[in-house]
Structure formats: C-alpha cells, structure tokens
C-alpha cells in the first residue's frame, strides 16, 4: 500500500531536503565529467539521456500526474528548437538568451491550446491525446511552408556556443545536465505541493476534484504550460546539439511516442519514474542499435518494452519501490503514526471521538426561486428554502423529486437556470464549483466517490487543503488524521479507497466533507445502505457535527434519522417545495401524506 503514498510528500521538510541534496550531489558529480576530460563521445551520449529525462519528466507533470495524455510534446519541443534556431541563426541573438524565449513561447503555445481545449467539458483522455498530436502536424506544416524554415532546414553551425568549459560539447552537456536536474526537482516539488495534490485528484475524478475546491481549469493550464515550457528549453538546447534543424526530424512521431513510453515504463505518477524510464530506453536503444544488428536491436527493445508494460503496468520504479518496502522491515512506525506538526487542540466528541477544535462560523444558506431543467425534464421548479445558521434541515421527498439535483446546483456541479443561492451575504449562484467549496460549502456523494489512487488520509487531507482555510500539506495531514479519528477510520489511514467496505466509504465521504471545515455541509443520503447499528453511530456523528457549529442540509430517506436530527423538514415533490416545518408538522401535512402514500380512498 505504502508505495501509492509516494509523491504526496511523506515527511515534510526533512525529506524535501534529502531529495534536494541528493539531486544536487548527482548534478555536481556529473558536472565534473567535462573537467576530467572524458571522450566527447560519452558527453554526447549522456547529453542525450539528460535531454530525454527533461522531456519525459516534464511530460509527466501534466500527463502523468493529471492523467491527460498529451501527444503534443513534439510540438513544444519543436517550438523550442525553431525558436532558438531562428533567433540564433537569422537574428544573431546569443544562444543562451534564446533559451528562455524558447521556453516561454512553448509555454504560451500550450496555454493557448489549453485555454481552448480545457474549456470543453468532459474532454476524454484519448481525444486530448489525438488533438495534441494533430496540433503537432499543423505546426510542422506551418513551419515548413513559411519563412521559419521554408523547406531546406536551418543550419546552426555558425552559432557561437559560450564556453562554460573547454569544449562546446562540454557546454551543451552541462546545459542538458542542468535542465534535467532542474526538471526532476520541479517534478518532485510539484508532486508534493498543492498543485500536485490537485493534479492527482483531477487524475482520479475531475468532477469531484472541482467540487472539493480544486480549480481544475487553472491547474491543468498551469501544468500544461509548465510541462511545455521545459520541453521548449530542451528543444532550444537540442537545436544547437544537432546544429541542423529540419521539420521532418523535429516534428516526427519520435518525441511524443518516446516520452510516453519512457514515462509509462518508469512510472508516470512518480516524480522520478520518467527519469528512470528515459535512462533505460536511451541506454538500451544505444546498446542494441549500434552497427549491423541495428534492425534486430530495435525489435529487441520493442519486445522488452511490451513485456515490461504487460508485466509491470504501474511502471518499473513503483514496482521496485513496492518490492523494496515489502522486503525491508517497516521503519519504526514514524511515517505511519501521527505526523509531526503543530499540535492542534482537540476536544471530546460523541463516543469519545476527538474533534479538531478550530471551528468555522456557521452561515445561513438561502435558495430563492431556483430552476433547473435537463432538456425537457424540469428537475427544479422554483425551489425556495433557507437553512438558518447552525440549523439542521432535512430535505425529503420521493425519488426523482429533485433533492440531489438541488445539492448539485448548490455545490456548483450544475449551474442553476434561474434563481439565487446565497451563503450568508455571499451570492453562490454563477460561481464555479471550486469557488463555492472555497467559501465553505461542502458536500458528500450518495455513492461515495473517493480518489481511487490516493490513500484514505490523502483523500481527507486534499479536502482540508482546498477548503476555505487553505493550509500547507503537513498541517492538512494532521487535521485529516483528526477527522479520521472522529469518523472512526483512524486505522484505515494508509488504505486505498477500493479496499474499504461501503460503511467505511460512506464515513470517508463524511470525513472529507468535514475536513474542509465547511460553514454549510450538504449530506446526500449518508445513511443509505447502512445497517441499524451503523445508522445509530452515524446519527450521533451528525449531531456531533452540528454541535461543533456547522449548518447542515441533509437528504435522507431513513425517517428515523430525519425525525431525530432535523430542526425543520422541507419536502420536495416534482421539483417543488410542497411543505416545510417541524418534522411532525411536515409529515402530517395532507399533501405530503398523499405524495408518499397515495390518496386515502377509504376515508
């Protein structure tokens, strides 16, 4: 299990320092090579590995972490190559000065593509892949047919290369090394940052990520631009390395396919995975494709690739790490026990659960004349209701009456067609879901939708991190642990959601919703599917939540819970509010009785 916890930083700062020092040591060690005077051939070979490491690692920042497979990495690499080639060869700009330009242009191109493409709702992964591939071909055609290239290619032999060391080859080697180290460091920092956690959440369930406060559009855009920018710089350096740039070589299918292969082979969701994959593939291509056996060598490499993907689908590095952790005696529970961090106050909750005490102020939720239609089906027809600050309101009604739709509209998953929704004085209608989560509205799903590749603890920490009081990861983890204790999931912190049973998954939903420290919490049938004993403990839990100061709107079919918990009940039928009042009043309302039980004929 523990292998899946990688990436989203385990120990906070000491581990980061460890990775940083490790990378720096490797970088400095390798940078001494030109000074020692190794043959230029080795410099050239190692440069190729560095270049591929930078490309594959940068690709994984969007595609590995967030799961949007781009086949357009060649376009950004090519943008960088032609930027440097054009600026240096035609305009005499110093080589080093062209590199930032190459990166920025590639990043802008990606941001432009992303701004159009990521607006498309429910963009399927393969479509994104092919779209980016198509853009590569379009760009190649444009470059080929305009003055940028025009056909014959661009020579960079005359471009002066600054002498950082004795030979130009050494300089290129050092630039490649620096870029590779910087890229791996960037990938590592992203993987244990807010951005990284957001991207991992997008990978697993983008809709839920948005509702849990992740600004999905912006994050994808940033990751895409960052990834493309690094590829652009790599292209700029490579232009000088090959010294003759042609469209056919630059925009070929090689770059997009190889970065995908390298990342998948090494492990695309691990910050170091693509670097491992890049090294393996570059080295084996070199080893097997020299001289006369080149054709057979290619086939052997391809066959090995097939075997690896079939046998280690998660990637080489994660597989090795898992085996290593299984073999090694567990490190004295330090990274399993409560993470170190600022102590937080806790108080006794129901059943002796401990609740993190930093309380939000509850706020009133108001819906006025909310309408929502799906094609011809009018799911909400002018719903008005209010939940006063600190109140528990039960929302009941027959199946299909619009209860879940109302929750989806309040949480921003759907935009209302008409009407006004406000939290306190703050208008919610019209805002994207992540902003609504950000001001303190949180919800649960009737069918739990945890992020499948994040541990239980990370699932809860994600919600804490992206809630109204954004906090750094290590603090979020401390709070998450508190909420897991509160919901009785403490022992399952390191498990992955698919290993949980329904009861535990329901409580995980609750823990996530609470971890955001919401001012209003929307509970969608948290009790359905639970047995009597579990219902009793859940009811106590919900009472505990209200006592800790949160406004609650809950949808429920279990009448015992509705009667025990609600201060007031609102009854929906066919998208309209048909009754509201105390539980007893509402349940005796003749209209409500008719809707639930049918007309009384014998009266």
């Amino acid at each position, binding site marked *: 299990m523990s292998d899946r916890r990688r990436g989203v930083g385990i120990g906070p700062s000491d581990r980061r320092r460890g990775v940083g020092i490790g990378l720096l040591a490797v970088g400095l060690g390798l940078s001494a090579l030109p000074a020692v005077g190794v043959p230029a051939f080795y410099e050239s070979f190692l440069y190729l590995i560095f270049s591929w490491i930078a490309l594959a690692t940068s690709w994984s920042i969007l595609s590995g972490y967030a799961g949007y497979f781009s086949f357009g990495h060649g376009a950004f690499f090519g943008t960088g190559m032609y930027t440097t080639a054009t600026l240096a060869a035609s305009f005499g700009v110093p080589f080093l000065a062209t590199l930032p330009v190459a990166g920025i242009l590639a990043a802008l191109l990606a941001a432009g593509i992303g701004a159009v*493409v990521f607006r498309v709702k429910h963009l399927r992964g393969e*479509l994104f892949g092919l779209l980016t591939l198509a853009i590569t071909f*379009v760009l190649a*055609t444009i470059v080929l047919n305009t003055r940028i290239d025009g056909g014959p290619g661009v020579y960079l032999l005359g471009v002066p290369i600054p002498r950082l060391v004795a030979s130009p080859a050494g300089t290129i080697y050092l630039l490649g090394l620096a870029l590779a180290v910087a890229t791996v460091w960037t990938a590592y920092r992203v993987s244990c940052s807010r951005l990284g956690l957001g991207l991992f959440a997008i990978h697993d369930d983008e809709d839920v990520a948005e509702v849990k406060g992740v600004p999905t559009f912006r994050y994808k855009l940033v990751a895409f631009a960052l990834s493309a920018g690094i590829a652009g710089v790599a292209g700029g350096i490579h232009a000088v390395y090959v010294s003759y740039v042609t469209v056919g070589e630059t925009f070929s299918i090689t770059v997009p396919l190889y970065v995908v292969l390298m990342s998948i082979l090494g492990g695309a969701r691990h910050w170091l995975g693509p670097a491992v994959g890049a090294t393996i593939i570059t080295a084996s291509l070199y080893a097997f494709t020299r001289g006369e056996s080149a054709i057979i060598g*290619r086939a052997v490499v*391809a066959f090995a690739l097939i075997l690896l993907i*079939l*046998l280690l689908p998660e990637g080489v590095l994660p597989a090795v790490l898992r085996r290593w952790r299984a073999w090694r005696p567990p490190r004295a529970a330090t990274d399993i026990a409560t993470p170190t961090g600022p102590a937080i106050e806790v108080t006794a909750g129901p059943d002796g659960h401990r609740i993190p005490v930093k309380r939000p102020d509850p706020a009133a939720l108001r819906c006025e004349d909310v309408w929502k239609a799906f094609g011809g089906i009018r799911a909400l027809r002018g719903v008005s209701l209010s939940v006063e600050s600190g109140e528990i309101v039960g929302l009941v009604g027959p199946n299909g009456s619009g209860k879940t739709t109302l929750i989806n509209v309040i949480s921003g998953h759907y935009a209302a067609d008409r009407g006004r929704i406000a939290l306190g004085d703050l208008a919610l209608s019209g805002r994207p879901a992540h902003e609504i989560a950000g001001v303190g509205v949180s919800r649960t799903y009737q069918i739990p939708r945890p992020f499948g590749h994040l541990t239980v603890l990370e699932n809860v920490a994600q919600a804490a991190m992206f809630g109204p009081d954004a906090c750094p990861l290590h603090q979020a983890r401390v709070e998450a642990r508190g909420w897991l204790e509160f919901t009785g999931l403490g022992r399952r912190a390191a498990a992955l959601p698919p290993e949980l049973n329904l009861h535990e998954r329901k409580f995980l939903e609750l823990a996530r919703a609470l971890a955001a420290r919401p001012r209003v919490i929307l509970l969608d049938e948290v009790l359905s599917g639970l047995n009597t004993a579990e219902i009793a403990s859940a009811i106590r839990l919900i009472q505990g939540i209200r006592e800790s100061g949160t406004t609650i709107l809950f949808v429920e079919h279990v009448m015992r819970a509705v009667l025990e918990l609600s201060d007031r009940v609102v009854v929906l039928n066919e998208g309209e509010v048909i009754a509201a009042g105390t539980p007893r009043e509402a349940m005796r309302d003749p209209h409500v009785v008719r809707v639930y039980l049918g007309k009384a004929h014998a009266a």
Partner: protein
Amino acid sequence: MPSLTLLGQSLISGLLTGGLYGLLALGLSLSWGLLRLVNLGHFALAFLGAYLTYQLGTVARLEPWVSVLLIVPLFFALGVGLHVVFVRFRVAEFASLLVTFGMTVIIESLIQWFWTADFRRYETAYASASTRIGPLFVPTLEFLACATAAVLALATWAWLRFTYVGKALRASAEDPAMAAAFGINHRRQAFLVSGVSAAYAGVAGAYIALISTLAPAQMWAWVGVVFAVVIIGGLANPIGALLAGLLIGVSESLTMAVVTPAWAPLVSFSVLILLLVARPGRV
C-alpha cells in the same frame, strides 16, 4: 485558379485516396470503439499485408486477389492472437497503445530485415489501367480500393446494426457489466472483432501494395491522417469512417490543386481540431 478539368480530376483522386483512408480507418475504428483498444499495430499489419501481397505476386506469381484470399484468414488469426494477449494481461486503453507501438516497431524491423529498407514497387499489368469519363480519368485500382472500402463499410454497418452479434457488441461497448448481466459473452465477440479488424488491415495492405511504392518506414506516414479520419468518423461507426475518409481525401487533394501540395496536411488536422473543439460530445 486551376481549370475545371484539374479540379474535377483532383476531386476524383481525392475521393479515391479517401476511400483508402476509410478502408484503413474501418478496422481501427472497430477495435477502438468496440473493444476500447487503440491499435497502432493496425498500420504495421496493413504494411505486412502489403509486403506479403508483393512477395506472393512477384516471387510466387500469384494474382493479387488470390493473395488476399490467403491473407484474410491468416490476419484474422493474427488479430485473434493479439486479442488473446490483451485479454490475458488485461491491457487497458493506454497500455494498448504502448503495446501495439512495440508491436509496430517489431513488425517494421521484421519487414526491414526481410525486404530491406529499399523502396519496392509491385508492377502489375493493370497498375496504370484507367477508365475515361469525358475529360477525366478514373484509375482502375484506386477505384477498386474505394469500392471495396464502401462495400466493407456497408457490410460492417449492417452487421453491427442488424445481427445479434452486432447488437451485443454495441451493448458491451456501451456498458460491459450490464451487457454481461443480460447474458452477452463479450469475450468471444471481442475475439471476432479483433480478427475482423486485422483482416481489414490485410485487405487495405493488398491495395497499398498495388497502388503505392513500399518502404517499411512509410507505415508511420499514415498514422496521423488515419487517426484523424477515425475520430472524425466517430468510433465504431463504419459509414462514418468511410465518409470521413472521403472528406479528408477530397479536402487534401483540393488543397493540393488550389493552394500547394505542401499545405495539404494542414487541412485534415484543422478539420479534426475544429470538430473536436466545436462538437466534443459527438465523439
């Protein structure tokens, strides 16, 4: 502005090239849409088919249609075999792309080993035969390729639309669990689809051998445009694949005639990008 005759001629050649695009897209569209497997190896299989046709024609002196009769069952078996691997290792959509990429490289290497990287031309008596319609020429082989694509697309459409197996396949593609609950044996039908898809690659390969000059690396040249055709046509939509092939073929050849040949690739991919951005829901 080029003459009307030139425009008419490029329209015809676009339609005929488009037919070949459609023929290649057909099998790809089936396995992607119905099995959720992105088979990059489709192009390698087509080229293997092309080289086998070439070999049987030039060395064994077999008529191309006899070669096709041999190739189709052989490739059907290859397709089934490939799917055995996919099922055995539970290969997912993206992993399938990578596995078939590896397969493509292996087949490319094999072809290069047997037939070398040199260009090969399969000369036949009817290679340059054509029919004259007024001022325009319709090359016979290209016309046959296009007609084959149309017949296969229609037959596949009818197969998916009207037979039990076709309906079962579409149901499984939509919701595998629910289809299984209604008693559909998806695995057996999946083998069938994979076999048929590979057999189509073989047929397309025979036409590639007859129409164009062969070189192993040429297989990559088809990847971009045919994938564009598959997506524009809609996954698992045989008629769509054919029409999209014709659309792309015509728009390319008209661009060649009106602007310059070099800008032709821009057209197909621009169509694809516009379509994806404007109507993402339809694919």
